């Protein structure tokens, strides 16, 4: 059963596009952070948010969130290819979205600080008495940082309109979750903060979306944050070049059978919402769209040495506000 066929089809398209974009990025760069198998978390989390809501997607799978917020693929690729026309003009590790789309940038390479920054956008939303909310996602590895504890505790204490989503993919580079924590379920950590903790099947995009939307409703109504653990799996290595030889093939194989896109597709097919031909067309279109956008971006101008931006450090010039 698909409650809302339109929504199911839309999220299917976003996940397929995410996969196509991710595969292409992996081919482009050995250092890319692959998101294959985890698409349901960013798509299910950030689908359906309002333009005045703030999105702070974790770095694994974030480009599809940029596209969902309105960035064209032709604008995504220049950043990924290190072209001058990219939003960060070569200053950012990977790429980012324009701030006016209310997608928080990943400012530095360390993990965790964005959780309190997202708590800060939620603070601003409450300060201004708006009913906008913030959603932030991050990995299970990041949830072991002090940043997580301080931010979630503060967001809970001040009942801020925010949804914290742990994209639990079981691996922090080579560190398996069970060695990183004695907690059985990361959602249980919510108890310590006095907020609801929800564990959800992170490979079921409809379930992720429903759980996040429920948390969004709570946040909009002024009831404060929710902690959601979406359990998924990192199907590839930490980066495209990582063969992940440190983990068992059996574990990967087991998760292969739970692919989030195939699972949704089967449901859509069974419900008669999508035909096999239409499904194929979605995959073909996504691949084509990604390829064309990349080809177009390759013709964009390269970064120049002057793009270092020596005199763009400060906003207010020295000598007076």
């Amino acid at each position: 059963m698909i409650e809302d066929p339109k929504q199911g089809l839309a999220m299917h398209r976003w996940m397929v596009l995410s996969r196509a974009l991710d595969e292409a990025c992996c081919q482009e760069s050995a250092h890319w952070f692959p998101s294959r198998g985890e698409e349901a978390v960013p798509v299910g989390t950030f689908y359906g948010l309002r333009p005045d809501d703030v999105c702070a997607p974790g770095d694994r799978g974030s480009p599809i969130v940029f596209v969902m917020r309105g960035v064209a693929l032709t604008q995504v690729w220049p950043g990924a290819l290190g072209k001058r026309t990219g939003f960060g003009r070569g200053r950012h590790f990977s790429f980012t979205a324009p701030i006016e789309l209310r997608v928080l940038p990943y400012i530095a390479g360390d993990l965790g600080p964005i959780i309190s920054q997202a708590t800060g956008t939620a603070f601003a939303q409450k300060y201004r008495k708006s009913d906008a909310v913030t959603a932030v996602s991050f990995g299970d590895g990041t949830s072991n940082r002090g940043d997580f504890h301080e931010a979630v505790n503060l967001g809970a204490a001040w009942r801020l309109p925010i949804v914290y989503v742990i994209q639990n993919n079981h691996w922090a580079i080579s560190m398996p979750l069970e060695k990183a924590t004695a907690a059985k379920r990361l959602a249980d950590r919510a108890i310590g903060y006095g907020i609801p903790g929800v564990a959800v099947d992170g490979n079921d995009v409809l379930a992720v979306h429903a759980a996040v939307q429920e948390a969004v409703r709570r946040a909009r109504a002024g009831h404060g944050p929710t902690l959601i653990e979406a359990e998924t799996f990192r199907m590839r290595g930490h980066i495209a070049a990582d063969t992940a030889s440190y983990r068992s093939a059996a574990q990967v194989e087991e998760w292969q059978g739970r692919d989030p896109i195939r699972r949704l597709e089967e449901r859509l097919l069974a419900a008669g919402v999508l035909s096999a031909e239409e499904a194929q067309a979605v995959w073909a279109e996504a691949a084509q769209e990604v390829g064309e956008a990349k080809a177009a971006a390759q013709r964009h101008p390269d970064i120049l040495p002057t793009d270092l931006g020596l005199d763009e450090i400060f906003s207010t010039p020295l000598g007076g506000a």
Partner: protein
Amino acid sequence: MPARRMTFVEALVEGIREEMRRDPNVFVLGQDIGPFGGSLRSTLGLWEEFGPARIFDTPISESAAAGLCIGAALEGLRPILDISFGEFLPSAMPQLVLHAPVVHWLTLGKARVPLTIRTKVGEGPYGGHPQCFEAWFAHVPGLKVVMPSTPADAKGLMKSAIRDDDPVLFFEHMYLYHGVRDMVPDGEHLVPIGRADVKRPGKDVTVAATAWMVHRALQAAHQFAAEGVEVEVLDLRTLAPLDVAGLLASVRKTGRLVVAHEAWKIGGLGAEVAATVAEQGFGYLKAPVVRVGAPHTPVPAHPTIRRAFLPDAQDVTNAVRAVLKYSA
């Protein structure tokens, strides 16, 4: 402009109060800054005037508070973060050095972080948490670092910091807090960020100093005047970016430079000041540059060894005598 006599901390709070009245986007957060009035009265009276809608007591979570400020600033607010003491700055380091200073540059100027971070450092009657870490922050591109020495500069720089669209780290010296009282202009008194100030003119030696060391340098200058030696006391006020032009202008005049700060001498800001003059003003120098700073030990607790640790007016005097030995 009419002026009133007030302490350093009263001047700081007046600057904040005026900016909060002027702009509803300005708010203050930190530990014990509400009904408690702030550690060492750093926010006294603000809670009574602005209440819980603008003044936010945080849990002991410096890092989350700093990150929250960045997010709030990205949404257009202008936070003032009160980090009670400089000793707590390391807890918020990723937000302060990796994140806040980078945003403007990273987003090609589309996003800004108009954030003022104030913190107390240095020796004082209270005796606790005196770590002076300002040089760490002056090292980081994208941060403005200020450290005033007088009530008037404290107010004027605070107002400029709050109106500035970049993150400004505001170091407030604990001895000066209640220990210095002086005239402070009413109302619209803005001291520009990035400008040093000659607190006492002189032609023989420049002492470039910060915070309490400015007062110790003035003390030394007063004594030298009796000997016919004119010491120019240059208050750096802004540590990052340094007022290189102001520094060079003073050294061009005097030909001799002593740099004095309470922080450790090794790797301190004095090293940057000395190197800048060596690179850009070597021709003006009649003597080697001498630095005054704390010895390289952790800050001790007991008053006896604390006195041995802290640079004082005598250290400035000794340094001035050392550079005077070299004739033109």
